[in-house]
């Protein structure tokens, strides 16, 4: 990319423009904005305004039962948050569940995409089939998984029992419950990421594979030395999207037991669920707004970190 390249010569118009009335000219300058207006109207109403209003609310004590009485708190909600042990617990849970769900999910998606990239029978059917879990609602999927993970009458513990493993308490165990929540996430999102990887793989030029094959590279080496480098931007994209998704994880932990505290000892309470507990369990709207802003900043930092690492890597590559 060079910025010094001369502008492309204007393509001569084949159709002469209509007589340039003043109204028409005005419309031409205004129309791009008009086309964008629907999006921006919606964005301002449902994106920007709530964002700013949440910041405003987070500085007050507001209770759902008495939303009219707002009491100035300053940064009180934020300091209360940082002093609350359960906030840190849920921050840690968000991180551990995020890792437990994102890493296997992306690795499996990569493997599946690699398999689906081969010529085989029923390829289109299989490609569609991997997307099916993504089309299921969170609620339906989680409720089914909650049954499967039941402690006393669940299918998974029954199967474990057949091979002589004691029943696992998938609701109350800290690690076990986090695995249960992650399983739902992995099940729902692996197919989606598979398709994204698949699309990425198909944009890797075939010539590269042919050249590698001619040099005697095995399928594995081709995967590591041709596919993976070619997929780097795609992987970066899925990592960013999964990180955001993991930070906001909410439906799965809420519906596992229907507990706003994320289990009796907050063992699988994520930040999203912590926000919900503050806002709709205890009705502290100001406190919930503060959590929302902390989450927002956290996501910004995480995505920024991702971008920084990616940029540094690509610079290193370029300098090679």
């Amino acid at each position: 990319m060079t910025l010094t390249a001369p502008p492309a010569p204007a393509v001569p118009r084949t159709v002469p423009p209509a007589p340039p009335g003043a109204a028409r000219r005005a419309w031409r300058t205004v129309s791009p904005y008009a086309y964008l207006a629907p999006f921006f109207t919606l964005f301002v109403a449902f994106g920007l305004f709530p964002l700013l209003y949440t910041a405003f609310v987070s500085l007050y004590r507001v209770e759902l039962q008495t939303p009219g009485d707002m009491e100035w708190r300053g940064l009180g909600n934020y300091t209360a948050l940082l002093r609350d042990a359960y906030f840190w617990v849920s921050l840690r849970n968000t991180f551990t569940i995020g890792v437990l769900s994102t890493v296997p999910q992306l690795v499996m998606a990569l493997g599946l995409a690699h398999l689906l990239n081969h010529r085989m029978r029923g390829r289109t059917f299989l490609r569609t089939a991997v997307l099916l879990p993504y089309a299921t609602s969170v609620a339906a999927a989680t409720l089914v998984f909650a049954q499967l993970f039941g402690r006393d009458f669940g299918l998974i513990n029954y199967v474990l029992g057949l091979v002589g493993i004691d029943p696992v308490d998938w609701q109350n165990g800290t690690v076990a419950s986090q695995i249960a929540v992650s399983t739902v996430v992995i099940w729902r999102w692996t197919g989606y990421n598979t398709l994204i990887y698949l699309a990425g793989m198909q944009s890797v030029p075939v010539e590269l594979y042919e050249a590698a094959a001619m040099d005697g590279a095995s399928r594995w080496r081709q995967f590591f030395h041709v596919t993976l480098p070619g997929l780097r931007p795609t992987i970066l994209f899925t990592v960013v999207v999964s990180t955001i998704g993991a930070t906001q994880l909410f439906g799965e932990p809420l519906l596992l037991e229907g507990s706003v505290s994320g289990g009796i000892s907050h063992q699988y309470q994520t930040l999203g669920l912590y926000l919900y507990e503050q806002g709709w369990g205890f009705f502290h709207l100001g406190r919930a707004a503060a959590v929302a802003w902390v989450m927002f900043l956290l996501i910004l930092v995480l995505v920024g970190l991702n971008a920084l690492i990616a940029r540094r890597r690509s610079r290193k590559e370029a300098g090679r």
Partner: protein
Amino acid sequence: MPIARAARRTAVRLGAVVLTGALLAACGSSTDGASGDGAGGEVTVTVDLFGSFGYKEAGLYAEYERLHPGVTVKQTDTEDEADYWKSLQTRLAGGGGLADVQGIEVGRIASVTQQQAERFEDLRKYGAEALENRFAPAKWAAATGKGGEVLGLGTDVGPEAMCYRKDLFEQAGLPTDREELAKKWATWDGYLELGKRYKAKAPGRSAWIDSVGSLYSIMIGQEKERYYDASGKLIWEDNPALRTAWDHAVEAARGGLSAKLDQWSPQWNQAFAAGSFATLPCPAWMLGYIKGQAGEAGKGRWDVAALPGGAGNWGGSYLTVPRAAKHKKEAYELIEWLTAPEQQTRLFEKQGNFPSATGAIDEVAGAKDPFFSGAPIGKIFGDAAKAAPVQVLGVHDQNIAQQITNALSEVERKGTSPEEAWSNARKGVENTID
């Protein structure tokens, strides 16, 4: 051709504008049309409840509709009261989507009278003050606002007893007679002692009690002061009665007497049919729930005995009419009828919800229930209702109770030390109150 293209472009532009307008309009309109009013005085009264009020099951709506032609009653129901309360509060704050009649649990009524009186109809407007002598004084007083507003009419109360599985007791070699048991478990220590004997010879993998959370809840129901004192001061941490209930629950948890279930969870529901526990602390309204979960197969297997450690009260409810309701007058007429002594009597006989109307309490004294092996439920619950203390109610009762039962469940299911669990409960309560 250019004309057609221009026309199409205009159409697309118009379409975009119309779409935006429609979207914005959709956001602005409130949730109207929840209950359709046909012509000719047809009215649909909506009722939104939690848990098991049992009106529909007892056929009371059908009868009301028969007595009032043109009125249709439509009920929606949430099983878990905590979920119900969340959704009710959200709708109250937004002012939309409210039913004409909303049920309120006694643990929340203080929040209604102290914080939200202006969101509910003062039923004196419709002549409710004339009903005062229908109800037990404490039941009436709890739903009265600071200015004397009548904010709800009492439905049932929750006198406490102990339900138990006769067949499981027999298999474990325990006495099954309700009188004898009542003597053996006159105190909570006696109850836990029997539990240890049961555990030694328990049939299958069944446990003595469903959860230590329900054990705690039934014990705290025997106290006058629980979380607040009469002046409204928060006292739960220094309340010796609460501490005693806590210690007993901890003892049951550590002795492995509990099936470690969460009340109202799907697993808990399944456990009724599977016979996972031998005793279940039961306020009167639990009888209907047991029948529903255990089904026909449970008939004659269950029995009811007097509660260890004296009488208590757990729960009971009110029916209210929100300010934002559509058919306030019709709603009031419905709740006046539903809470009248005759209907409360019928409800108890069919479903087991114990009446709060004084007239009905004498009426049901002789009631027996074949499902519970013919136990004299009218006498057992009637005696408990008379002897139960009048509880001091506070705004955050329900939330504090939830934090304490959560902490006890940690001891029960995760082996957390009682000291740590207590400090977790304290943290939880601090979060709750803010």
